[in-house]
């Protein structure tokens, strides 16, 4: 009804013309053998501006999205059961590769873009972790690993009234005195669930599915879904968008996580609208590598596995990103494919900020992507603090934590203890969260200001600060990491510790750099 009302307005003729010309988008690159391919169809590149529903401070708690699509292996990590990632050593002949794969009853898959590895299909129900171990022992194999599930780091909660306490906590106002929002020549990649970055109407096909609690939802069939750019992000600052879940150039956010993260990094500021972001002049590159519930319901052809994340990171740096925000991760077995991608990014001049994890209350398992930080100069792993500057209760502690930043902590205060940003209005997104009778197609053109908590939110602060540093001419990733550490406010045990790393980031101190004496 809302859609039709909008289409019947003054923009309707233009919408129909563009829709007819645009056709539907469906690419034919590498597929995952285990999933039938859904598709989305671009009906219109024109849509009405996003609807801003303001601050949502009285919503009931929303359960964190979960999925039963993933099996958990011996390592404790979820992964796809009938394929894995392999990188053969350079010079290994195709015949030798096939022979090796035949030994484990595997067959090579199609060539992937932005990947220096292969995806191979397994037959016969072999466990990918076991097969990966066997393959890794072969001299011609550099590494092999299952396709572990990556996921966003945020812990959504019901928002209440607040303000952006997070920026004063890191001395951001005084940092803006030095660098007011960074440079338009700097690009930050949001490697995430996508971003609400533009207007469009897309046609998807919703499949029947069953929720984790056993409730079945009917197939929606073909549905036209409206999208809009988040009003407070602006629409003309996005470069090189890429979707590795749908394998196209329309990385729309179907959950709100990536849009929220992008807001902390670069929300338009000083414009009299909504909230502020840190580097509000920089360009943003939405790179979608995480699938969420609606991607599943719409039957996306790809899933957010390690290989997808790795490709997204490589794509980002190949297309000019100087800062890569990875508010995502997973626990469990190592991810050499992601590590290799991050090393590639750093070696090509991109600074990488990765979430430290939200597992403190769930066994405090280390965050696998974040763990690379101590071994890679130019990458940091970020823990989360609450408004009281103490480590958030959920924030994973470990030897790989290098910095802390505001991530919110609802456990130690009111709901306003989260990080406030504009994102998709979850009332129009999570229509599957309630009873089936209220299940409808979602809308992604309605926005509100929500409080989120998580090391995802903390990571965004580090990326925003890194973008400002790059804007000041500091382009060496290792140097960015160095000044972030050196300028951090030491918290917890004096010196580096597992809760805060080198301390809470201090934006002003970092942007000031060093004199001889101070």
């Amino acid at each position, binding site marked *: 009804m809302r859609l039709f009302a909008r289409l019947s307005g003054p923009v309707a003729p233009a919408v129909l013309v563009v829709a007819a010309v645009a056709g539907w988008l469906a690419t034919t690159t590498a597929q995952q053998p285990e999933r039938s391919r859904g598709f989305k169809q671009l009906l219109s590149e024109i849509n009405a501006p996003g609807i801003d529903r303001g601050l949502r401070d009285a919503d009931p708690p929303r359960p964190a999205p979960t999925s039963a699509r993933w099996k958990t292996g011996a390592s404790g990590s979820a992964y796809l059961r009938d394929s894995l990632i392999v990188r053969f050593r350079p010079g290994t002949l195709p015949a030798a590769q096939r022979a090796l794969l035949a030994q484990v009853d595997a067959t090579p898959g199609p060539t992937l873009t932005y990947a220096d590895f292969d995806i191979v299909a397994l037959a016969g129900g072999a466990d990918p972790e076991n097969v990966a171990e066997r393959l890794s022992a072969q001299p011609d194999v550099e590494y092999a690993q299952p396709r572990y599930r990556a996921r966003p780091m945020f812990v959504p909660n019901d928002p209440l009234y607040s303000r952006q306490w997070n920026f004063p906590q890191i001395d951001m106002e005084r940092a803006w005195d*030095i660098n007011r929002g960074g440079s338009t020549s700097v690009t930050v990649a949001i490697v995430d669930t996508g971003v609400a970055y533009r207007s469009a109407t897309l046609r998807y096909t919703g499949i029947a599915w069953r929720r984790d609690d056993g409730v079945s939802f009917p197939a929606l069939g073909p549905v036209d879904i409206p999208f809009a750019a988040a009003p407070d992000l602006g629409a003309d600052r996005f470069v090189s968008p890429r979707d590795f879940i749908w394998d196209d150039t329309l990385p729309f956010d179907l959950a709100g996580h990536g849009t929220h993260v992008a807001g902390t990094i670069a929300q338009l500021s000083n414009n009299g609208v909504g909230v502020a972001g840190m580097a509000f002049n920089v360009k943003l590159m939405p790179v979608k590598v995480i699938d969420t519930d609606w991607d599943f319901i719409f039957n996306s052809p790809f899933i957010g596995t390690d290989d997808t994340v790795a490709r997204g990171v490589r794509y980002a740096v190949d297309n000019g990103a100087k800062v890569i925000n990875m508010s995502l991760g997973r626990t469990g077995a190592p991810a050499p494919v992601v590590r290799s991608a991050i090393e590639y990014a750093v070696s090509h001049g991109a600074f990488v900020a990765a979430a430290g994890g939200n597992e403190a209350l769930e066994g405090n398992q280390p965050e696998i992507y974040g763990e690379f930080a101590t071994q890679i100069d130019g990458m940091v792993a970020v823990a989360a603090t609450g408004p009281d500057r103490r480590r958030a209760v959920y924030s994973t502690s470990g030897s790989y934590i290098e910095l802390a930043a505001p991530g919110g902590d609802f456990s130690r205060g009111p709901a306003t203890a989260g990080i406030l940003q504009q994102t998709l209005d979850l009332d129009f997104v999570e229509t599957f969260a309630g009873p089936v009778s209220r299940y409808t197609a979602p809308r992604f053109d309605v926005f509100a200001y929500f409080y989120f908590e998580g090391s995802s939110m903390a990571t965004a602060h580090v990326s925003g600060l890194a973008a400002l540093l790059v804007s000041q001419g500091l382009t060496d990733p290792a140097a960015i990491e160095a000044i972030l550490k050196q300028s951090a406010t030491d918290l917890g045990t004096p010196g580096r510790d597992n809760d805060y790393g080198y301390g809470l980031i201090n934006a002003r101190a970092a942007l000031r750099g060093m004199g001889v004496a*101070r």
Partner: protein
Amino acid sequence: MSSRLGRSVHAAVVCGTLALLPVTAGAQTRPPVRRAPEPTVRLRGFGEAGARTFTASQSFEAVLGSRSGVLFGGGAEVLVGRNLFVSFGVSRFQKDGERVVVANGQAFPIGIDTTISVMPIEVSAGWRFTKPRQTVIPYLGGGLGWHRYKETSEFATSDENVQFTKTGFQLLGGAEWRASRWLGVAGEAAWMSVPNAFEGGASSAAAAFGEDDLGGAVFRVKVVIGR
């Protein structure tokens, strides 16, 4: 008593009379010219210009682009007798640079202008190795210095700028050429040490490079006015 005094006065009068008699004989020799005795304490002034390098070479090179720069100054010097001297001097070094980030021993400019000035107040004493009719006089000395350091930056608030004074010591040596009775030119080298000057700044180039001494070497030319 009175008769002894009377004899002395008489003798003086006789001598004076003899001295006043006109010289009549060509064979007589000319009496030696008497030079006025040098004063025991002489006060001199000097101006100086030169170059200084810093012991914290990496830190200054990172921020200022060079570990050295020019200085100007002046002061006063007291010569006691022929050999001993005590000098009071003030000089000033100032240079503009850019704040940096230091990573893995390498400095990266960050686009924020900064100015550093160092003003040492030196009190030194030493020994001048003089000989009669010597025109070049070498000297050695040493003393204490109070080094006023100031570092100001673009965008900085007053509490972010740095200003302190630290005490150090210096050793010096040089040679003075007496160009005339009232003018001398000296070339001097000094080595200063101001330990623990930068120990307070955890996030500083000095800390990053492990340098905490504000001292260094100074090479200067002095123009000395005075005997």
